[in-house]
């Protein structure tokens, strides 16, 4: 009897025990099969100091993700400044399997390596999403004699010393934008006397103050200044006219120059991030761009929607690499 009851007892315990074990396991199985999820806060890196374009993108999107409850974990913005991004890229490339690491990106990830200042370029990372874009805009003073972009280019041809200010370093975005435009108009890409200022704002002030003849910068940055009436825009590098305050600005294409230039921004991940994690983040950003909080923030910051999923973004980046190496090569700045 005693023996039996003990057995019985055991059996009686066994069932609930099994149930309990199963209960613990099943959600685990279900989770692993359906979707990967971050298990700790995501390091969300802006490869620059606070205040710039990458930093704003990282902080804004992290904020939207939290506000809209898109992830079970926090996205914590981290600034890793240095070398126009090179310091952060090297760090991320070293940590190539980390599923809890993302970073903001834009054309410098192609340009900086081409200039020979970084060992890593976009091919050393996994594209997650392209999110937004801005365009390049060419400005002159309101009283300038140049009425169209072609007149400006003709003047540059006649006088190669004509100074064109820009907000980024030589060989970086603003420079490439105007050199590419000049090349498309039949000038040598190296024929623009590009004066590098430390920021689009400074370059615009130099224009208003009559220190340079023209300035090339981001259209978003210029729109508030244009409203002041002291500057005129000659061309914008978008495929079609922009809306809002820049609706009057003609594109390069309208003026017979077949040229567009995107200042895109997006998100990338380490190269060997597990596939499930990549899929998770791609899905997250695809959902994020549909939320009202994102749309509001995007409009407030003057950003234009330019979403691409990871795969399309990767192909786009390869095309950009070709375009940029050609322009930099023509300019004699290609070092890699």
């Amino acid at each position: 009897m005693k023996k039996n009851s003990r057995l019985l007892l055991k059996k009686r315990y066994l069932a609930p025990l099994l149930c309990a074990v199963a209960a613990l396991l099943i959600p685990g199985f279900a989770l692993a099969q359906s979707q990967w999820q971050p298990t700790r806060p995501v390091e969300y890196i802006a490869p620059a100091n606070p205040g710039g374009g990458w930093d704003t993108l990282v902080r804004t999107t992290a904020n939207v993700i939290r506000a809209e409850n898109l992830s079970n974990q926090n996205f914590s913005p981290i600034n890793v400044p240095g070398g126009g991004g090179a310091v952060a890229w090297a760090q991320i490339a070293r940590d190539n399997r980390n599923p809890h690491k993302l970073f903001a990106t834009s054309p410098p990830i192609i340009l900086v390596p081409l200039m020979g200042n970084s060992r890593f370029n976009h091919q050393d990372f996994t594209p997650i999403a392209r999110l937004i874009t801005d365009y390049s805009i060419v400005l002159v003073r309101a009283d300038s004699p140049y009425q169209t972009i072609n007149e400006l280019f003709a003047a540059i041809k006649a006088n190669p010393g004509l100074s064109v200010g820009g907000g980024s370093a030589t060989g970086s975005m603003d420079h490439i934008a105007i050199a590419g435009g000049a090349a498309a108009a039949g000038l040598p890409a190296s024929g623009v006397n590009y004066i590098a200022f430390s920021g689009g704002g400074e370059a615009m002030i130099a224009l208003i103050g009559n220190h340079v003849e023209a300035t090339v910068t981001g259209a978003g940055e210029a729109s508030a200044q244009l409203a002041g009436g002291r500057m005129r825009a000659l061309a914008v590098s978008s495929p079609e006219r922009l809306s809002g305050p820049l609706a009057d600005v003609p594109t390069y294409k309208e003026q017979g120059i077949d040229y567009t230039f995107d200042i895109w921004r997006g998100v990338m991940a380490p190269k060997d991030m597990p596939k499930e994690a990549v899929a998770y983040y791609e899905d997250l950003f695809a959902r994020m761009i549909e939320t009202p909080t994102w749309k509001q923030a995007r409009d407030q910051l003057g950003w234009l929607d330019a979403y691409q999923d990871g795969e399309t973004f990767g192909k786009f980046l390869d095309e950009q690499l070709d375009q940029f190496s050609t322009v930099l090569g023509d300019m004699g700045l290609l070092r890699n």
Partner: protein
Amino acid sequence: MESLTNLVYGFQIALDPMNIFYVFIGVFAGTVIGMLPGLGPISALALMIPMAFTMDPASGLILMAGVYYGAIFGGSTSSILLNAPGVAGTVATSFDGYPMAKKGLAGKALALAAYASFIGGTISVLGLMLIAPLLSQVAISFGPAEYFALMVLGLTAVVSLSDKSLIKGMIAAIFGMMVSIMGIDLQTGTERYTFNHIELLDGIDFIVVALGLFALAEVFYMLLRGGSKTQKRNIVGSLKLSRQEVKEIAMPITRSSILGFFTGVLPGAGATIGSFLGYSMEKRLARDGDTFGQGNIKGVAAPEAANNAACGGSFVPLLTLGVPGSGTTAILLGALLVMGVTPGPMMLEQRPDVFWGVIASMYIGNIFLLVLNLPLIPYFARLLDVPRPLLLSMILIFCMVGVYGMSFSVFNLFLLLGFGLIGLAMRLYGFPAAPMILALILGALMEESMRRALQISGGDWWVFIQKPISMWLLIIAFLSLFMPLFKFVYRRIRGF
């Protein structure tokens, strides 16, 4: 009268109970952040951007501006007590503030810094209120040639800052200049002095050098020299200024405030450059200029008035032109954009509430800062009462935490240590640190502006003389450089 109406309007916004609360929180947080060496207002402001997202733009900017000028106000405390500048803008304050503290005048130095900061801040608010729109014209009139000339003028102070040996001062200045151009060159994309090290691609952060050269070198020096055990004495000293002293500093504070304010208005300059220009101007104008660097009260008053005035002045390009002049104002610009306000030429018409509200809030903020800081001075100064081994380790820890917290880079800690050792060697062999720091601050901008100006002019050097502002600045630079010679000759002639 129009500005009076505007100011009344501004005060209506700033005196809203919620906004008074924001000013208070802002300046309080700013003071604390400023006091911790290395940790500047930039990281604190970046953390606030998500908060600003939901705030009314006027309140948001009132809060964030408070952090900014609060940090510059508070930064003097650690400059004076520990020789460890809290923020870049208060490096010059340590030149005379720290010697004063060593003499047992810590209380007076801190009080002096507080009064000078208050007056500098208030003068800049007046300037903002009365002539901000006009000032944007001043900012615009400065192109590359003008910046170059201004930096040359600033650099002539090397002569007056190298006390004993001019040669050693020049060597220090050239070394500072070399450090300042490290990294990727903006105009060509070439790497300079980076030794193939990616951490050096952006050059070296100014505050790392300043902390190493001043705070760490001082710690090493004290360790090396062992201690004349400081006998117990009144460490705090009196906070009161005599009537004679008030008279003495009145003009330097006023002059430095005005100079600082105009420096702040230039988008390329800012609080740090402003404080150095103020310091060197007063050193040259003062009759007892040779005692600067040994604890002269004017040497504390001038840079403190100038940096706070410059901080206010930097709101001119930010708000009326939409152009940030420094890392900190760049974040303020970003925050404003997030809040849906686009600073620029239309700001005064579109968002007068933000513009005048912030200016009015600065009056209140400056009063808060004074009231908050003065009663606390005896407590801060008691920090020096801490036994020396403990104090030295505290300085070390503060500096390292501050530098690490800036960018989470271990590399920067080694740099800090390296500059500490360089600073020690410089002290042992009689090389002055001030010219090096000055060249480090002005060098990069001078070099950049010069090349920019020449690139625009097609290599024509006359551009620096043809532009009137640049020409006058260069003439003043020339005069101030040869002033000692003129004085010498004059005295000789009179002596006969």
